[in-house]
């Protein structure tokens, strides 16, 4: 009996240990980044935008606080919005993705801005972008440089072929 209760205690403590370990910084496993692409630009341009879908499958809110890329001197998160009929752009310091939620970074909305490019972004290039989250999670995304996004891509996502 004594041994059995000791064993139960050990199992219980171990289980609690693993549960709490799994909750801290486990966003890496629960954040899915898809359809990451970068706007290909002529060589004279030193700024471009990266877009992607970020899905948060965890039970906690995820907060993107910054991004970085070797290809850019400075990387920022920006939001486009309409005001007085004009498109406005503003730098934001964090982007919230709700638990079990999804955020689209797409033209006219959010984007990751790559500023002071160190080399041109040509169609077909793969640009690694590192996403930094508030809880310490870090995810590296390989964004493909394109001239344009396929118009039907959003309707194709999730379709079983």
């Amino acid at each position, binding site marked *: 009996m004594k041994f059995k209760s000791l064993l139960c205690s050990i199992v219980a403590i171990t289980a609690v240990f693993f549960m709490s370990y799994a909750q801290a910084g486990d966003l890496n496993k629960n954040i899915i980044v898809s359809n990451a692409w970068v706007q290909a630009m002529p060589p004279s341009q030193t700024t471009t935008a990266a877009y992607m879908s970020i899905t948060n499958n965890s039970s906690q809110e995820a907060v993107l606080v910054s991004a970085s890329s070797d290809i850019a001197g400075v990387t920022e998160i920006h939001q486009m919005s309409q005001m007085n009929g004009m*498109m406005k752009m503003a730098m934001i310091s964090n982007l919230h993705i709700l638990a079990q939620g999804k955020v689209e970074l797409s*033209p006219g909305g959010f984007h990751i801005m790559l500023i002071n490019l160190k080399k041109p972004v040509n169609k077909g290039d793969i640009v690694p972008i590192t996403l930094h989250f508030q809880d310490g999670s870090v995810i590296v995304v390989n964004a493909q440089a394109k001239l344009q996004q396929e118009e039907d891509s959003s309707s194709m996502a999730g379709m079983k072929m």
Partner: protein
Amino acid sequence: MDYGTLNPQRDFTLHDQDGKIFHLKDHRGEIILLFFGYTSCPDECPTTLSKLARVYALLGPMRQKVLTLFVTIDPQRDTPQKLKEYLKYFNINAIGLTGTKQEIDAVVDSYKAMYEKVVTHISALGYDFDHTDNLYLIDEQGKTSYLFHLEDKAKDMAQVIKGF
């Protein structure tokens, strides 16, 4: 809606990417797609130009008579050479137009467009522009006849243009 009230004179004068003088009235018989932007624009300008590349592909042989005019609202940074290189990249029949701020503002006003230079102290960009995103279709007689917006899809735009 009658868009003919936008630039009813059906003319304006600016300078093109080769430094030559440009008069809208010299382009009768062509369908013009005009919009205001700047080459450092990271989002809606390249998006519009990429979409136009698809529109031109959908137009087929008609594409020869469709001319895109990109009027810069950032003449300070957008030199004629920069405009030329930028537009060439998107592979469409386009001319970049520039001028003094006064000349450009006159054209912006005639099409009832708007822009505002925004100096930012937090972003490394330094400054950027808020601007209206309309794409104006000017018919073969120089009359402003249709307005496209950012959300319009390439195939729908090609359909509209084919009707002119």
